[in-house]
C-alpha cells in the first residue's frame, strides 16, 4: 500500500488562524494537496509507475486595487503569514502598472463546511497493483487481437485532491475529490503504413463509475479494431458539408468553440461573444450549459462542489434555445459586470492563481434518434472519436476526429479516416437542424490548457450541423 506524505485532515482552522493574524483587506488562502498515481505499460513493459504528492498554500491578496499572489509549501502559520506579506509586496510593487483598479468583490454566500466527491475513499483504498494488472491484461489483449497490431500501450492516472479554502469575507471550506482515468492506444501496420486507434475515459468518482459504460477490455478491443480498420480506410473529401457529430465531438464543440469564447476574461478581450448577451447565436434547438454538477449521468470529469475562490459551483445556462444568456465568471469579472460569480475560478496546483475555467460543458439533449438523424442527411458525414481541439477568441475553432463515415441519401457508408474540422462557433451553431436524445459525457480524460491545465468534461447528444472538413481531395 502506498502512503501519503501528509495525512488528510481539515486545514481550515489553521488557515483561519493565520488569516485572523494578517492585516486587513481581502485575503484568500488555499491549501491544496495533489496526490497522483500513474502507471503506463507498452508491449508488456512498465514505463511509468509513479506516486507523487505536492502540497502547499496559495495566497492571494487584494492590495492597492491589484491582486498579488505568493505561495508556500509549508502548512505552518508562520510560513503562511510570510507568504501573505510577499503577496502584498508583489501587489504594491505592481499597482503602478494597473490602469483599472479591481472593484470590491461581490458579496455572495460563500461555501462553508466539507464537501467530498463520490468515490474518494474506495479509490484511494484500491491497491495500485490492481490497476497495474488491468493495464498489463488490456495491453496484452489489444496486441493479441490482430496480427496487424504491432504495438499497444495502456495508461492509468489518478488525481486525488484536498483543498481547504478560507477567505477574509467568509469562505471556510474543505473539499476532497478523486479523478481516475484510463487510456489505451493500439498501432497497426500494413504495407509500410501505420494507423493508430485510441480510447480513453476519465471521471470524477470511483472505478465503478470509470468503467460504467464500457469495461477496460472492451475499450482495448475497440482501440485495436479502430487501428486495424483505419489501415484500409480512405480519406473523406474536403469542403463545407453537413455532419453528424458524436457526443464526444459535441463536447469538443461546446468546450472549444463556445465555452472558451464565453469565459469572461476572453469576453473582456473582445471575443466573438462580447456584446452579444440576449442575442441569437444558435439555432433554437441549442441549449448549452456549464455546470459544476454532473448533469444527466454521474461521473463527469470536471465535477466540483466549490470553486477555488470558495464560490459554490452551480449550473450556468450559457445559451438558452439559441439566445446567449450568460458568460462564465470569477469574482472579479462578476464584480465588473454587476452579476453573481458563476463558480468558474480554478487553479491547477497550490502555486497557481485561480483563472476562469470551464467545468462540465454540454448541449442539452433534444428529441431525435441517431437513426432519424442519419436518415435526414442527403450528403454528408458522420464523425466520431475526439482528438485534440483549439479555438480562438474570434470563435474560429479546429478539432480532430478519429473516424468518419460518408452518408449519402440517408445511408451510412464504410469507415473513412478521421480529419480535422473547422468553423466559427456561432455560425456553426446556427446551422444545427437536429439534436439527438441520448446524452453522454465523453471528454473526461486529458486536460484543458489555458496557461494551467484543468480537468474538465464535456458532452451532449448527437448533433447535426455544418462545418468545414479538411479532407484530402478538394
Amino acid at each position, binding site marked *: 500500500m502506498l502512503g*501519503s506524505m501528509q495525512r488528510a485532515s481539515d486545514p481550515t482552522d489553521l488557515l483561519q488562524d493565520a488569516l485572523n493574524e494578517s492585516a486587513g483587506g481581502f485575503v484568500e488562502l488555499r491549501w491544496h494537496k495533489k496526490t497522483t498515481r500513474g502507471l503506463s505499460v507498452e508491449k508488456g513493459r512498465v*514505463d511509468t509507475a509513479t506516486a*507523487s504528492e505536492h502540497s502547499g498554500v496559495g495566497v492571494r491578496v487584494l492590495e492597492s486595487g491589484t491582486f498579488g499572489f505568493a505561495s508556500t509549501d509549508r502548512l505552518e502559520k508562520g510560513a503562511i503569514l510570510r507568504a501573505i506579506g510577499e503577496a502584498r509586496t508583489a501587489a504594491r510593487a505592481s499597482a503602478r502598472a494597473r490602469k483599472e483598479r479591481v472593484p470590491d468583490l461581490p458579496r455572495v454566500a460563500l461555501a462553508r463546511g466539507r464537501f467530498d466527491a463520490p468515490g474518494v475513499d474506495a479509490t484511494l483504498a484500491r491497491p495500485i497493483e490492481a490497476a497495474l494488472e488491468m493495464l498489463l491484461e488490456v495491453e496484452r489483449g489489444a496486441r493479441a487481437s490482430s496480427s496487424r497490431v504491432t504495438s499497444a500501450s495502456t495508461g492509468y492516472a489518478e488525481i486525488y485532491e484536498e483543498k481547504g479554502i478560507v477567505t477574509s469575507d467568509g469562505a471556510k471550506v474543505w473539499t476532497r475529490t478523486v479523478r481516475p482515468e484510463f487510456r489505451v492506444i493500439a498501432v497497426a501496420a500494413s504495407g509500410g503504413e501505420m494507423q493508430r486507434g485510441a480510447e480513453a475515459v476519465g471521471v470524477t468518482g470511483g472505478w465503478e463509475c470509470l468503467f460504467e459504460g464500457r469495461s477496460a477490455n472492451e475499450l482495448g478491443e475497440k482501440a485495436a479494431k479502430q487501428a486495424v480498420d483505419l489501415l484500409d480506410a480512405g480519406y473523406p473529401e474536403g469542403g463545407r458539408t453537413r455532419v453528424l457529430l458524436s457526443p464526444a465531438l459535441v463536447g469538443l464543440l461546446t468546450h472549444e468553440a463556445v465555452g472558451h469564447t464565453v469565459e469572461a476574461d476572453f469576453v473582456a478581450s473582445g471575443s466573438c461573444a462580447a456584446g452579444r448577451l440576449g442575442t441569437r447565436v444558435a439555432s433554437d434547438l441549442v441549449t448549452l450549459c456549464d455546470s459544476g454538477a454532473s448533469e444527466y449521468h454521474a461521473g463527469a470529469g470536471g465535477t466540483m462542489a466549490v470553486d477555488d475562490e470558495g464560490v459554490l459551483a452551480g449550473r450556468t445556462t450559457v445559451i438558452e434555445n439559441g439566445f446567449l444568456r450568460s458568460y462564465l465568471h470569477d469574482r472579479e469579472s462578476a464584480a465588473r459586470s454587476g452579476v453573481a460569480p458563476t463558480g468558474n475560478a480554478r487553479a491547477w496546483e497550490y502555486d497557481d492563481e485561480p483563472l476562469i475555467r470551464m467545468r462540465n460543458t454540454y448541449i442539452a439533449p433534444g428529441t431525435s434518434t441517431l437513426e432519424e438523424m442519419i436518415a435526414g442527411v442527403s450528403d454528408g458525414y458522420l464523425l466520431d472519436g475526439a482528438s485534440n481541439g483549439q479555438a480562438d477568441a474570434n470563435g474560429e475553432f479546429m478539432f480532430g476526429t478519429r473516424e468518419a463515415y460518408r452518408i449519402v441519401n440517408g445511408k451510412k457508408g464504410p469507415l473513412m479516416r478521421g480529419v480535422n474540422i473547422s468553423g466559427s462557433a456561432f455560425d456553426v451553431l446556427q446551422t444545427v437542424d437536429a439534436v439527438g436524445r441520448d446524452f453522454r459525457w465523453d471528454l473526461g480524460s486529458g486536460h484543458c490548457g489555458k496557461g494551467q491545465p484543468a480537468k474538465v468534461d464535456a458532452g451532449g447528444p448527437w448533433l447535426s450541423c455544418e462545418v468545414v472538413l479538411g479532407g484530402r*481531395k*478538394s
Partner: protein
Amino acid sequence: MSGTAVGRVAVKDEATTREHEDRLLSACEALVGLALRAGAHEAEAFATRAEKASASFEKGDLKLAHVDEGSSIGLRVFRDARLGFSATNQFDLESLEQVARNAVALATASPADPANRLPDVQRLEMLAPLVHPGLARLGIEEAVDYGHALVTRAQKHDARISVDGANSSVSRVAQAIHTSRGVRATESDAMVSLSISGMAIQGTDVGGFHYASDAVRDPARIEASLTALVDDFAGTAVGNLGAESARGSYQGLVLLSPDALLDIFVAPVLGAASAIAVQRGRSALGKRLGERIGAPGFSIHDRPHDVDLAGAGSFDREGQPTRDFALLEDGWLRGWLYNGYAAAVENRLSTGHARGGARSVPSLGAHAIHVAAGSGGTREALLATLGKGLLVQRFSGSVDPASGDFSGVAKSSRWVEGGRVVAPVRETLLSGNAYQLLARIVSLGSRAERVDGGARAPWALVDGVNVTAG
C-alpha cells in the same frame, strides 16, 4: 520518526546559485541513501528549485503579480530490474522516507525488465554558467515593467490591437542529480520569458488570434526581444483583419513559417526518431535509418549547447552529457535519440536525450532543435517562387505520429498571387502526410529564425499539401 529537515531548501533566502545547487545535491544524496536502505537496488534522485516573479496582463491591463519559490525532488528506483518512482515537494525527513518507501513498493509490484538499470557515469563538459549575473538581480518590478512595455507598445503600434493576454516572467532554476552509480551533477539557469496574444478588432470584424513568445538569458537582449515580439504580434494581428476564404482549394505548394514547419514536419520526425518508438514497432521511420527520407538540403540537428535557446544544458535528466546530434542531414536519416532505458535495450550508450523534471520518470526527446537554412533567399523570394497559393504562419491541428497524417487550420494565413500577399485568409484547412511530404520540401529560406526562444528554423516551401477553402 521526527520531521527533521534534510537538505531543506530555504525560502526567499539570499543564498547564491552554488549554495542552492549544493542543498539540492545534499537532498538527492540523502534520498538515494534512504532508497537503498528501503530495499532499492539502484536509485536516482533528481531535484529542482525554481524561483519566479511574473506579471500577467489581461485586456491590456495588469491582472496579477505573482512571486513564487518551490522545490521538487523525484526518486527513481530499480529493485530486481523492476521500476518504481515517487516525488514530493516536501523535503523533511519523514516525507523523504515516505517517498523512498513508495518508490520501492511500486517497484515491488512492477514486472521486471532487463533494461531497467541506471546509466553509468559519463564525463560531463559543463557549459559556461547559464545564469547571467545581470539577470540574477531582476525581480517582480522588472517583470511588471517588461509586461507593461509589451502591452503598451502593442497598443501604440495600432489602436485596433486588443491584447487578450500578456505574460512576463523572470525565473531562476537550479537542478541536481545523484545516483547510486555515482552520477553527480548540478546546474542552474535563468531566463526572462515574454509572451503576448490577442487580435485586432475593427468594428464587427474580430481578426484572427495571434501569439508570440520569446525567452532570453542575456538582459542586454530583452529590449530587442520586446521589439521583435511587438512587431510580430501587432503586425500579424492587424494583418488578419478583413480575412476572406481562400481563393480556391488545391493540392500543391504552400509557404510555411518556421513555426508551422516545426509543428507539421519536425515534430513527427522527432517522435518517430525516438529509439523506444523504433524498438517497440510504432515508429513510421523505424526501418529507414540510413535512407534519404527528406529533400536534399533538409537537415535537423539537436544543439543543446546553443545557449541562445531555452533548452540548452550540460547534461540531461539522467545526468548524461548532452552534445550536438545529427538527426537528418541533407535529407538522410542519421540516427535515433536514446535515453538510458533505450540505450540499455541495445546495450549501448545514451545520446543524452533523457528529458523531464523532478516529478516524473525521465522521458525521451530533443533539447534545442536546429533546422538548417537553405538557399531559397528571403521570405519575399520564397513568395515569388510560390507565385500563387497559401502562406501559413501558424498551424493549429494535429499530426498523427504513427501515420504522419496531418490535418488542421492554417492560422494567420495569407493568399498569395503574383508572388505577393494579396489578402488575409480564414477557415482554411491543411492536410497531407508529413513523412511523404518531407521529400517534397522544394525550398528553404536562407535564414534560420528563432522560434519561441526554443528552436531555429527557416521558412519552407512545400509541395503536395492539400488546401481546403472554407
